[in-house]
């Protein structure tokens, strides 16, 4: 079915996709996690309410999140060029992915931390815990299982985005599916790639859920 060399091509693309996804998830968390923590802490009912910070951050996050990914990746091209010196290939895609994913992750983190019961936070306050101690010793550890579930959602979503990055020369499995499957009409290759993506998403999701379950002491 495949011409010679096709397998090798798909193999390279597979690793490109994994590389893009994991690297951009990592960097997106570096930005998104603190943003999520700030959102929760500065909330009007949070541990350290600063409404102006909370609202401004919320609006910025909503704006970035409302721009469709393909448009976002094109819009930030000048920035991408500045950051990694190129606007095509996996490296450039990572910049786009991380800009798109960071606000998404901030919201995931926010919702995970909000699951922590108010009463537990109040109890910590009654023991004289400072806002920072509450964050580090109560909010994050208590929300850990939920944060892990969130990270499984984040990594699969970013994988989906990375396939879209193929449209603008981002490389990876998405690029192959588009170049061969769509532009050259080789549907079989496209289907193989789609199946491959489905399998990767299933594995990542299941893996994340299992870790979350293992670490949760509530069960």
């Amino acid at each position: 079915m495949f011409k010679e060399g096709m397998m090798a091509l798909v193999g390279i693309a597979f690793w490109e996709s994994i590389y893009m996804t994991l690297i951009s998830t990592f960097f997106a968390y570096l930005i998104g996690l603190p943003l999520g923590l700030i959102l929760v802490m500065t909330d009007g009912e949070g541990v350290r309410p600063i409404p102006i910070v909370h609202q401004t951050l919320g609006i910025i996050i909503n704006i970035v999140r409302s721009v469709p990914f393909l448009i976002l990746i094109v819009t930030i091209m000048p920035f991408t060029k500045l950051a990694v010196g190129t606007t095509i290939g996996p490296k450039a895609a990572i910049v786009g992915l991380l800009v798109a994913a960071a606000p998404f992750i901030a919201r995931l983190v926010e919702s995970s931390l909000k699951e922590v019961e108010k009463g537990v936070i109040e109890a910590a306050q009654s023991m004289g815990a400072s806002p920072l101690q509450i964050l580090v010793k109560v909010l994050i550890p208590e929300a850990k299982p939920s944060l892990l579930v969130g990270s499984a959602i984040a990594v699969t979503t970013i994988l989906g985005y990375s396939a879209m990055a193929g449209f603008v020369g981002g490389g990876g499995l998405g690029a192959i599916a588009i170049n061969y499957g769509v532009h050259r009409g080789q549907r079989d290759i496209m289907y193989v790639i789609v199946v491959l993506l489905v399998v990767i998403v299933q594995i990542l999701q299941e893996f994340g859920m299992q870790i979350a379950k293992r670490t949760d002491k509530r069960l």
Partner: protein
Amino acid sequence: MEKKETMIHLEGISKSFPQKRGSLEVLKDIDLKIEKGEVFGIIGLSGAGKSTLVRCINLLERPTKGRVYLDGAELTCLPEKELRQQRHSMGMIFQQFQLLMQRTALENVCFPLEIAGVPKEKARARAEELLDLVGLGERLGAYPSQLSGGQKQRVAIARALATEPKVLLCDEATSALDPNTTAGVLRLLKDINERLGITIVVITHEMSVIQEICNRVAIIDDGQIAEMGGVEEIFRAPKTKAGRELVYHEGTKREAIEGPMENCYRVVFRGGISGEPILGGMMLECNAVANILSGNTRMLDGRVYGQMMIQLPADKETRERMLAYLREREVEVEEVQYV
């Protein structure tokens, strides 16, 4: 007589919460002194403001007006950082326990010590000692989800005691527990009070909890202290409507009996006489029957107390004879308006 020292002093405490229109006044100018080493009860129906009041003691809620003193030092004027320091000397336990679900019992008790900056080894040793004290020395490694309600509250008590507080605040600490477990937890609190001399403030809506462990009680109604005094005194003769409702009915409205009933009396038995069949004797002696409406018996500071609501016959002469019989036997009888 020894002079009692004040541990907690609330001075003119008012608290209102802003609402969409105007504000809701939950506490109205409350003055309260709680003595060192006593078990002080604050009782009221739900919505009376008692939970807000206890949160004003450690300033989880900032009172809108008034001052709070702990052991002579004003808390209300302290900056956040110093207030946090002061909170190490006030433990608190809650109705829903509020343990950290991702930590073991031992780690939960270590938590306030970590907060206070106690070295790990020392914290661990202290936590083990405390869990032993509350009877959970064998369950150090258990997670809260593996413990029963009563055990969780014991962990919470150990946790509240970790920083060697002067005061333990209990916010409806037994309301989520069944009667047997409640009795155990109350015994533990009493024991802690006696052995460690910690002042305990108990918030509850159950008169039985107050009677079990408190020395003094304040009845709070509609954001104000309706009456305050020794538990025995209030139990025997509540002066206010809120007090009567709590003492006679345990705070629950009796839907079954509607409207005022006539010739109703509340009979209070004290000490040893509960053993004698006084009511039976009265009925035989007077050759008339009394209608028993409700009754209960409980221990109060080691003595048996019983109270009973009875309805006596409409015939005045018989009624008088029955009352005389009861009064002769040093049983307290008072006519009550409703049952």
